[in-house]
């Protein structure tokens, strides 16, 4: 059997339901509030079978209110619908004494707690790590916040009493500094030549991924020692660690890496170019590959003008080189440029690929076949297209069991079965706005 056929057989998403779930022995309480780093961390765990109990305040998490242009389905915003997957949704008011007691009863049954409140809030509520670890020595508590739980800002009362915000995390990570169009690139309007955030909530997603990893490392450690632990994650620090070598470069050379539009400070060509109908990515950075690129666009003079990697990675040359190349390819469409590259069969390796709009990306059946994107008909939410799962695994594939539920939709099931709260008591708690 050829490898692709075998790989597909091993990981075919249509067979996921018949296979076991890797984390079906873990109970996760996700009490994150207005924070997609927390929600993404618990999504990753829930896709792999952890029983995730989303605890929201009785009026629902404000993360449900975060949605483009106010667009909601049935009271819930689009980004929350994406991260509601496989989670049980209960409500609980932990500001009230009775709510706190119930929360502690939940904690006794949990393996993992994820929380994203403003720094110090859990302590103020009397639900800090010192309290919770006494209730459950195996608990792994993961706090995710912009400034973290400890350190200079926390100790000097410099942390605002506010929830984490992705754009602030992007700013503090150093990432936003390196993304964007530089001042001197003057064919673009002035207000666009500034440090720029990633369009998606990249810091929160990076923070969620790092948090999920830290949680799983702690689970492995707990399997050996029997002890839980406290994890303190900052999405800003998570994204900082993904900002290539910016920090090391400053340490070693004193040079700050600034924004360079779509160039790559360590290689050229390895960047985007404008064509008649959008951008293309072109790579050809080692000398023979640069020659191939210049040959394709019939500009042998550029081989002479920028002969070595050192010439081409000189940031002063990025814009002039790009203008030269664009002066040729701006007359062609993205498709035509890619075709020129595919037709080249001389020495050297250079590739070209189209930069797509999300709508164009959706045209590839590839993502749907592999389950990275899914079409679903949800009884409550209707007909949807959204992210499926990124990973394929042969034995314990991640999967989506349901899309999203309303605040408190699982109250009865959970409080009755897990905590043995009877119906009458539940009704009373509802009336007192504790649940």
């Amino acid at each position, binding site marked *: 059997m050829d490898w692709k056929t075998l790989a597909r057989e091993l990981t075919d998403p249509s067979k996921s339901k018949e296979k076991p779930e890797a984390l079906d*022995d873990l109970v996760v309480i996700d009490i994150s509030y207005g924070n997609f780093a927390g929600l993404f961390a618990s999504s990753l765990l829930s896709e792999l079978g952890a029983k995730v109990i989303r605890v929201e305040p009785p009026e629902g998490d404000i993360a449900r209110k975060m949605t483009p242009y106010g667009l909601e389905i049935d009271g819930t915003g689009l980004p929350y619908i994406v991260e509601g997957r496989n989670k049980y949704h209960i409500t609980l008011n932990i500001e009230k004494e009775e709510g706190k007691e119930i929360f502690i009863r939940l904690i006794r049954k949990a393996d993992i707690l994820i929380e994203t409140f403003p720094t110090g809030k859990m302590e103020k509520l009397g639900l800090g790590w010192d309290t919770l670890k006494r209730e459950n020595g195996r608990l792994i508590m993961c706090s995710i916040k912009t400034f973290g739980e400890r350190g200079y800002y926390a100790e000097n009362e410099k942390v605002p009493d*506010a929830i984490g*915000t992705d754009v602030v995390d992007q700013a503090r990570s150093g990432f936003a500094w390196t993304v964007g169009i530089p001042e001197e690139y003057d064919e673009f309007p002035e207000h666009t030549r500034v440090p720029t955030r990633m369009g998606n909530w990249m810091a929160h997603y990076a923070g969620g991924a790092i948090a999920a990893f830290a949680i799983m490392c702690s689970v*492995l450690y707990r399997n050996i020692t029997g002890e839980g632990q406290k994890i303190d994650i900052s999405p800003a620090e998570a994204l900082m660690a993904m900002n290539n070598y910016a920090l090391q470069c400053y340490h*070693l050379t004193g040079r700050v890496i600034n924004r360079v539009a779509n160039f790559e400070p360590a290689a050229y060509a390895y960047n985007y170019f404008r064509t008649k109908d959008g951008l293309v990515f072109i790579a050809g950075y080692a000398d023979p590959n640069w020659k191939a690129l210049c040959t394709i666009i019939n500009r042998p003079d550029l081989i002479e003008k920028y002969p070595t990697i050192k010439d081409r*990675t000189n940031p002063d040359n990025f814009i002039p080189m790009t203008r030269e190349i664009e002066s040729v390819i701006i007359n062609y469409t993205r498709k035509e440029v890619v075709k020129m590259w595919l037709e080249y069969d001389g020495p050297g390796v250079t590739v070209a690929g189209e930069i797509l709009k999300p709508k164009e*990306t959706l045209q590839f059946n590839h993502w749907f076949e592999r389950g990275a994107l899914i079409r679903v008909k949800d009884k409550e939410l209707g007909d949807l297209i959204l992210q499926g799962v990124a990973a394929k695994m042969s034995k314990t594939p991640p999967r989506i069991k349901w899309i999203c539920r309303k605040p408190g939709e699982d109250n009865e099931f959970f409080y009755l079965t897990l905590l043995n709260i009877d119906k009458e008591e539940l009704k009373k708690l509802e009336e007192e706005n504790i649940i």
Partner: protein
Amino acid sequence: MGAEVIHIEMPGSGDLLIRAVSPGGIFPRNLGLGAVAPNVNKYHVAIDIRHPKGKRIIQELVSISDVLVENFKPGTFDSWGIGYRDLSKINKKLVYISLSGFGNWGELSDRPSYDAYAQGITGLAEITGFKEAMPLKAQAWIGDFLSGTVGAFLVAVALHYRNKAGEGQFIDLSQSEVLIRVMDWTWLYIHLTGKERERTGNRDYATVPSLITKAKDGFIAIGAFEKREFIGLCKATGIEELSKYEDYTERLKNADRIYELIEEWAREKKIEEIEELAVKYGFMVGRVMNSRDIYHDPHYLSRKSVFFYNDPIYGNLVQPNPLSSLEKTPAIVRWTVRPVGIDNEHVLSRILGYTQSEIEELYKEGVIGK
């Protein structure tokens, strides 16, 4: 996190694609910056895995290892006889993860894997930047770093399962699919509205207000979504018109006006003033920091998320450490990328039990090298 990681490269050149990548073509202390960031605490061994004897060393290593990580073009390891189907026979507990651009199967799986291409083909670049300018990619290789992180998570999950069930597995992770996954509301929005997702520069239209804006002496990010925080921002700015928009939905619908007001206000304020107001009135802020700011930031230094260490070869170095604050098992950096093949003897002799003369023979035949 303490795993013993053996990084295998080609004898001689090493992993040229990473080792030769450095901004401006400069190699301070002989270090390629591209190789410094993603190489921590690893043993560096150089084996020609296409050589039959090299292949045998891989098999011996795999038989006593927990995890194999590779990022070759899908099917390459299989064609060399060291793919998942072969190695899982040698070690049924092996967790094998393949990291690629587009996955191990499917119509796009033959396409070359470049981070910048993944950022482009998924539409991530298209939604980043200003509408009036052009799509922007992250300068950093976010497709690589983020899928590496998700990959590490999946490996830990597979190890947890292995500890229960006694068997490893094959993991197929594609960086473009990871980027698709993290594009929040993009797909649902396009499907429901039929509209394209527009680039909106530094204004976030799903969490209003949440923006990066120009202050008198630099750039600052401000977030004040929760009602209590928004009221705080209204008080701090003293802009009366803002308080009309306490309601969440009203804010999302009047985002442009709200952003104009805040941007106009911030232009006249110093970053430090805004930071003090945020602490006083309770909304979130953070200055747009560059690597120099981060390097000297007392908060990051106190948290050891900016982590200084003494590398045994290269001396005093620094590394971002987002896992520095685990109570019992914090991540610790001990060394960065090491010269090609420097740990050959350690791995072959101490771990696999090769004799000195066997190792010399392997050098002579070019199976291993430095």
